C-alpha cells in the first residue's frame, strides 16, 4: 500500500498564523489602551501611554498632564485593566482545559461549580473567619473552596457512577447549586451591613484591583498557564477518549485530576479578586477553536489572548453603561454568555 512517491502532507496554515498572532496582540494592546482611556473621566490616549511609559522608565516623557489624571491612569484604571486581562485569560484557559479533560464542550469553571466553591471560600473568609492570614486569606480560602468543590464534583460523579467524562458536567451543575445555596446561607447569617459589599462582589467586579495585590493572580496564572501549555499535546490526546489517551502513555486519571487542581487554583484566585464572572471559560475557547483550530498548543494561548480582550471590553461596558456607577461585570458576561450558549445550541443540535 505504501507508494513509491512520497507526497509530503501540506503544511499547516502557517502562512497566516504569525499575522494572526501579531494582529491579536495588537488588538490586545489597543483594547488595553481603550480600557484605561475610557471611563467616567476620559483620558486621552497620549496621556495614558505617557503615564505608563513614565512609570516604567522615569523622566522618559515630560509630564504635561495633571496629577489627578496620573492617579486615575496608574492607580485605578491600569491595575484594573491588568486584573481584567488576567481574569479573562485565566478563566478562558481553565475552560479550554476542562473541556478537553471532561471531553465536554460545555465545561466551564462556573458550570462545574468550581467558581461557586471559590466564592464560598471567599465569603467564609470575608464574613466569618476574618483575615487571619492577612491579604492571603481570601485568595487562599477561595482556592480551598474551589478545590473542595472540585473534590465534591469528582466524588459525586463517582458516587453517581458517572465516571465517564461527559457526565462530570451534570455532577458539576448539581454541586454548583448546592454550594451556592450554602454560600447564600453564609451571607444570610452574616452581619447585614457587611453583606452588601459581599453580594456586590459576588456579582463580579474588577473595582478592587490594587497594585499591591496583583502579584497573587499573576503568579498563579503564569505558573498554571505554563504547566497547561507544557501539557497541551496531552490535552489533545484527552479529547479523543480516556482509553486512547491511556494507550498513548498518559496516566489519564492523574492527569485529569492535575488539570482540575490547576483549574481550581486559577479559578479560586480569580474569584477572590473579581467575584464570579461566568461564561468566559465556556465561550472563549469555542471562538478560539473557530479561529485557530482544535490543537491545544494554539487553543490555549489564543484563548488566553481572546479572554483578556473580551474581559477588557466587558469591563469597559460595565463602567460606561451606567456611568458613573460600576455595573457588575458578571451581569455583562452572563448576558453575552447566555446568548452565546443559545447560539451554540442552535448551531449544533446534537451537542454534548
Amino acid at each position: 500500500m505504501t507508494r513509491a512517491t512520497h507526497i509530503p502532507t501540506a503544511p499547516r496554515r502557517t502562512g497566516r498564523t504569525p499575522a494572526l498572532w501579531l494582529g491579536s496582540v495588537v488588538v490586545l494592546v489597543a483594547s488595553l489602551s481603550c480600557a484605561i482611556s475610557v471611563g467616567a473621566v476620559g483620558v486621552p490616549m497620549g496621556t495614558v501611554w505617557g503615564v505608563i511609559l513614565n512609570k516604567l522608565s522615569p523622566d522618559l516623557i515630560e509630564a504635561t498632564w495633571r496629577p489627578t489624571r496620573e492617579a486615575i491612569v496608574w492607580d485605578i484604571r491600569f491595575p484594573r485593566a491588568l486584573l481584567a486581562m488576567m481574569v479573562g485569560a485565566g478563566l478562558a484557559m481553565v475552560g479550554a482545559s476542562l473541556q478537553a479533560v471532561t471531553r465536554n464542550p460545555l465545561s466551564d469553571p462556573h458550570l462545574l461549580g468550581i467558581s461557586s466553591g471559590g466564592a464560598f471560600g471567599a465569603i467564609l473568609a470575608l464574613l466569618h473567619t476574618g483575615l487571619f492570614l492577612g491579604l492571603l486569606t481570601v485568595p487562599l480560602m477561595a482556592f480551598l473552596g474551589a478545590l473542595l468543590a472540585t473534590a465534591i464534583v469528582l466524588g459525586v460523579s463517582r458516587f453517581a457512577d458517572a465516571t465517564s467524562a461527559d457526565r462530570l458536567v451534570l455532577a458539576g451543575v448539581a454541586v454548583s447549586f448546592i454550594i451556592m445555596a450554602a454560600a447564600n446561607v453564609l451571607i444570610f447569617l452574616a452581619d447585614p451591613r457587611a453583606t452588601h459589599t459581599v453580594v456586590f462582589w459576588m456579582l463580579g467586579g474588577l473595582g478592587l484591583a490594587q497594585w499591591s495585590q496583583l502579584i497573587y493572580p499573576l503568579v498563579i496564572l503564569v505558573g498554571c498557564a505554563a504547566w497547561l501549555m507544557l501539557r497541551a499535546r496531552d490535552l489533545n490526546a484527552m479529547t479523543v477518549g480516556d482509553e486512547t489517551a491511556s494507550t498513548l502513555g498518559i496516566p489519564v486519571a492523574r492527569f485529569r485530576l492535575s488539570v482540575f487542581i490547576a483549574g481550581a487554583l486559577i479559578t479560586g484566585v480569580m474569584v477572590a479578586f473579581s467575584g464570579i464572572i461566568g461564561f468566559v471559560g465556556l465561550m472563549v475557547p469555542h471562538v478560539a477553536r473557530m479561529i485557530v483550530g482544535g490543537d491545544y498548543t494554539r487553543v490555549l494561548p489564543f484563548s488566553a489572548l481572546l479572554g483578556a480582550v473580551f474581559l477588557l471590553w466587558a469591563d469597559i461596558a460595565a463602567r460606561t453603561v451606567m456611568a458613573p456607577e460600576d455595573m457588575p461585570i458578571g451581569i455583562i458576561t452572563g448576558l453575552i454568555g447566555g446568548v452565546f450558549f443559545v447560539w451554540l445550541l442552535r448551531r449544533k443540535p446534537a451537542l454534548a
Partner: protein
Amino acid sequence: MTAARLSVSNLSWSPKRTPLLHPTSFDLAPGRVLGVVGPNGAGKTTLLRLLYRFHKPLTGTVCIDGHDIWALPAKSAAQRVAAVLQEHPSDFALTVADIVALGRTPHRRGFVGNTGARDRQIIDQAIDRLDLNGLTHRHLGTLSGGERQRVMVARALAQDPQLLILDEPTNHLDIRHQLEVLDLIRTLPLTIVTSLHDLNLAADVCDDILILQDGRTIGFGAPDAVLTEAAVSNTFHVTARREHLSRSDTTHLTFHL
C-alpha cells in the same frame, strides 16, 4: 516497523467479585494476526484492555518481546503497543493531521516535544499508507465512519508500535471499507490482535483464532482447527454449519437458530 512476540500467561481480571476473564495464556509469534471472537460479554474487550495496558491484571502478565508491559513505564509501553478503539472525538475541531500527530505522544522527549523531522516523516508515512492525503485539514467530525477509522489506524501507526490492538475494526463500515481494513491488517508487518464479530472475516484474515466464552478460552489455534461446527455452535448458542463455497473454493460458516 518491527513486529514483536506477544506472550500472555495466566492472565485474569475482575472488577469486583465476578471475574470477567479467567486465567488465559497464549503465545503469538512476531507478525502473526490473532482474531479474538466470542459472543457479547465473553470478555473480548476485557482481554484487549489488558493487552493495551488499560486494565491492570489481577493475575498473570502480558509480555512484549519478554518485557512485562506493567513493569515498563507507561510511555515505554505506549511505544510498543498501539490500539485502535471505538472512541471517536467530534466536537473539538482537531484536524486529521492533528489526530495522526497524536501518535507521536509517547515518543516525545522532554517537556516541549518539538515535532522533529523524524516525527514529521513517520506521520507523513502513516497518512500516506492510509491514503489520507486529501483529508489532512478536515475536521474529524466531518468525516465518514470509514474515513474516521482510517484516521485512527494512521494515528496508531504513527505510534510506530510493535503490537497493534484493534477493537472491532470493521464495525459500522460498509463492505468495501471492511475489505480495505482487512487488507491493511494482512499487509501490516506488525503483530496484531483484533476482536471481530464476523467469524468468516476472522477466519479469512487471521493466522490464529482465540474463542472466548464467559471469560474462558474455548479454543486457540489455526482458524480451521478452532472454528469447528461444534465449537461455534456451543459458544454462540446457534447451529453452525461449515459449507463449501464451490465458486471461490473456500469454506464458509452459516448460522441457524
